[in-house]
């Protein structure tokens, strides 16, 4: 039975909250979708509380009132992010409730707690229900109610925590974006952990816990996304199929887990997440009673949308105003009428303005009435959410781009490399003939891009590419790359956001920087300058001239590289083809590295026919 709270006990209680919240930081981070899904709520709350607790511990005066006041003040100073500010306002309110007291009993403590919740509300310009605010308010109400008859603080806390937990579970009903993403409110969860920390202290439970593998919002949304893609692509036609896929995926992952040796099991977070997210998605489908594929589709769509919300204001607009007697607050208020995130900083002579708006011109015109407007920067904001960026490609819709690239390739490895460097469409391949004018024309017209760059990657194909350019109504440019390495060198300077003119210039300039050689088997007897070549011998070509010959491809490659390397070169790249073995290629890589310790040497699988190796030196 705990009958009163004093300074010493408050220190213990808040330290416990702090430890427990810190231990749950990642859990809270993973819930964060509101107001912006940036995954830092737990982090912000934890650091805010941590600073307050540290300051409180350093205080010499240990009476309740002073400690509470210190906690309030230092949490405001340290507050971070929206959730941190709300938490600090709560602590300030709590301190006000404890002002002038050395010890309090249950009723007074509950009243102070309620003051805290009130202060948290008061600190926000536009309070939103379904957030930490609601959790604090409802649990405070409950605390007040029980404290009327109950004097054991432990009991009241237990009830208050229970209420907080229950309200938290209801947050998705109050705030639709939470429901769509399938989470409870992150700040609310943080608040529950703060109460829970104190409860665990009283109950003698540990204040640190190794977190289980958490199902993150990002991963769950990705699972929804893959379902959505499946539905759009016609692979998932009814709800049974979705359930089957989910069950199969879960089962396969579980089987994989069961086969893992014990010591590896601990780290198998990836596989466990797969199980967790699919189970969660399946749970949602069943719990919400989704009956048909349409309902699943719209649920999936809404979940994905929470991470790809349309921006209300499209343009991030920034500029400087040089003037006299500028009133920053006034400017900020005026800007705020045209959008959000208005920030005006600076001095009365120079104001830096920042606003997200749909009316950049109006904002600019207003600014011009105040003084000289300078350094105007208007950005069309990407609606990406950075956290998802990497995993996003899956569901992205096909859009008509400004610029696209068609390149010719001769091997699967080379095609993959070309694609990873920004090529949209590959022509040719190991078994195909060299592409004709018609093939190239088709590829140009098929491409969802207004402007097209052609990389023939073979001297013999350049004329066909030029002809295709003439025939097309689109704006087409040919970069006269005579080999795959030349094409890749050009791609190093490709900027998908630049204009076709800029790209033509920079990419063409890159061609001259690289030397290309090939190692192949001689198809017939030949005499080339002083070299007599027998059929079946291996030859090394450099700029289409036979430079060296021998019996083994690796040996010939080494000799050829010697012919190619000159002063100022820094990279040798080897692409091994169908006829070369990986092991031999790796051996060659090591030999070249040994021979040229100052050069960067890289080996890739090209998969080209005819040539054992394509070699470039730059």
């Amino acid at each position, binding site marked *: 039975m705990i009958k009163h709270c004093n300074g010493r006990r408050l220190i213990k209680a808040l330290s416990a909250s702090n430890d427990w919240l810190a231990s749950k930081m990642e859990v809270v981070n993973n819930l964060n979708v509101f107001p912006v899904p940036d995954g830092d709520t737990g982090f912000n709350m934890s650091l805010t509380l941590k600073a307050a607790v540290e300051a409180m511990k350093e205080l010499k005066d240990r009476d309740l009132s002073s400690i509470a006041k210190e906690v309030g003040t*230092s949490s405001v100073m340290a507050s971070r992010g929206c959730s941190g500010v709300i938490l600090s306002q709560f602590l300030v309110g709590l301190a006000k409730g404890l002002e002038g007291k050395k010890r309090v009993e249950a009723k007074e403590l509950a009243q102070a707690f309620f003051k805290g919740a009130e202060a948290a509300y008061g600190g926000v310009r536009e309070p939103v229900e379904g957030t930490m605010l609601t959790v604090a308010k409802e649990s405070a109400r409950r605390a007040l109610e029980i404290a009327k008859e109950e004097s054991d603080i432990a009991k009241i806390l237990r009830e208050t925590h229970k209420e907080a937990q229950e309200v938290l579970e209801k947050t998705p009903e109050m705030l639709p974006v939470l429901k769509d993403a399938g989470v409870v409110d992150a700040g609310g969860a943080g608040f529950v952990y703060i109460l829970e920390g104190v409860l665990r202290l009283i109950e003698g439970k540990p204040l640190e816990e190794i977190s289980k593998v958490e199902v993150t919002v990002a991963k769950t949304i990705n699972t929804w996304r893959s379902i959505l893609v499946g539905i759009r692509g016609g692979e998932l036609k009814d709800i049974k199929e979705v359930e089957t896929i989910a069950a199969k995926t879960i089962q396969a992952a579980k089987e994989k887990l069961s086969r893992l040796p014990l010591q590896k099991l601990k780290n198998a977070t990836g596989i466990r997440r797969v199980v967790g997210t699919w189970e969660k998605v399946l749970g949602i489908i069943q719990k919400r009673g989704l009956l048909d594929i349409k309902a699943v589709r719209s649920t999936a769509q809404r979940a994905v949308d929470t991470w790809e919300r349309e921006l209300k204001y499209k343009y991030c607009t920034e500029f400087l105003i040089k003037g006299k007697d500028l009133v920053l607050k006034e400017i900020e208020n005026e800007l705020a009428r045209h959008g959000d995130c208005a920030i005006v900083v*600076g001095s009365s002579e120079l104001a830096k303005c920042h606003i997200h708006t749909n009316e950049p011109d109006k904002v600019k015109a207003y600014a011009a009435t105040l003084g000289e407007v300078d350094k105007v920067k208007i950005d069309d904001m990407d609606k990406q959410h950075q956290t998802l960026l990497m995993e996003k490609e899956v569901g992205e819709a096909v859009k008509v781009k400004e610029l696209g690239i068609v390149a010719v390739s001769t091997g699967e490895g080379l095609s993959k490399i070309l694609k990873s*460097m920004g090529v949209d469409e590959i022509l040719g391949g190991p078994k195909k003939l060299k592409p004709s004018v018609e093939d190239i024309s088709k590829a140009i017209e098929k491409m969802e891009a207004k402007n097209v760059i052609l990389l023939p990657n073979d001297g013999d194909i350049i004329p066909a590419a030029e002809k295709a350019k003439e025939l097309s109504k689109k704006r087409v440019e040919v970069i006269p790359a005579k080999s795959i390495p030349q094409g890749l060198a050009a791609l190093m300077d490709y900027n998908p*956001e630049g204009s076709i003119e800029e790209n033509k210039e920079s990419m063409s300039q890159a061609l001259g920087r690289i030397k290309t050689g090939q190692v192949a088997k001689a198809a017939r007897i030949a005499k080339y300058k002083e070299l007599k070549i027998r059929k079946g011998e291996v030859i090394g070509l450099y700029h289409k001239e036979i430079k060296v010959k021998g019996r083994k491809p690796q040996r010939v490659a080494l000799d050829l590289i010697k012919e190619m390397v000159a002063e100022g070169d820094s990279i040798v790249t080897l692409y091994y083809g169908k006829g070369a073995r990986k092991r031999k290629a790796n051996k060659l890589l090591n030999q070249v590295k040994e021979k040229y310790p100052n050069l*960067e040497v890289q080996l890739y699988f090209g998969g080209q026919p005819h040539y054992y190796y394509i070699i470039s030196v*730059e």
Partner: protein
Amino acid sequence: MTKIGIVTGSVAGIPSPLIKEYGIRVIPFPIILGREALRDGMDIQPKEFLEKVKKSKEFPKTAALPIGELAEAYEAFMKEGKAVLSMHMSSGLSIATHDSAQKAKEMVSEVEVEIFDTEQIIGGIQLVILEAARAIRKGKSKEEVLKVARKARENTNLLRALPDLEYLYRGGRIGKAKVLMGSLMKVIPIIAAKNVITPVGKGRSPTQANEKMVGTIKSDMESRGAKGIKCIIEHADNEEAAGELKRMVEERFHPEEITLRETGCCGIVHTGPQSWGIAYLIK
């Protein structure tokens, strides 16, 4: 005439002899690695930090500048009878830093504080700050110092080679540079940072990356009719590449000033181990 003191964040990475020489007050950015919160340059130095990052499974993050510490620094200058010039990293890349400075300013309304957006990151901030610090030392008025700083800001640029783009991505600052991601070939992306991050190109080796950076500087100098440059070359555990860049810059541009140093911990958080680059001010 009022004297002026400069306050900045540790992300500039200004070496301590210079901090002392010009009496700059540097507020450490909090760096979070796993559950540890470290104060940049106080609890941790770049070498030790790089080791920690290597060992850690998690990616480091930075948190906003503590408002309280900024306010204290402002007050400390006021007690010395100085006005404050609070010079910070690009607001385009970190509006939070500007916010912190603005809030700190509001907290100590009795102090004369001018918040200045350098529009730069890491070494670029240092270049702009040093120009201002020198003007202050010459006894220039606040207006004149600001004019110098604005001009320096206009004429400063930063290029950086990032062998591992993951760090920039994790920091949420990748912006348009995302086009540089995901290549199957080993490439070293190069970015320019001034208010926004923009891709400059790619190099396949450190030497190629250096050539690209030098080429970019050259065309920048030509288009601005430069008379000379001052520069800072910095690196995160890649003295070899940075050293080569320094030699190339010395040979081609004969800079008025050139220094080679390590990037601070805060800079490393966003650019990653092995990254290197140059901040240059065109005269």
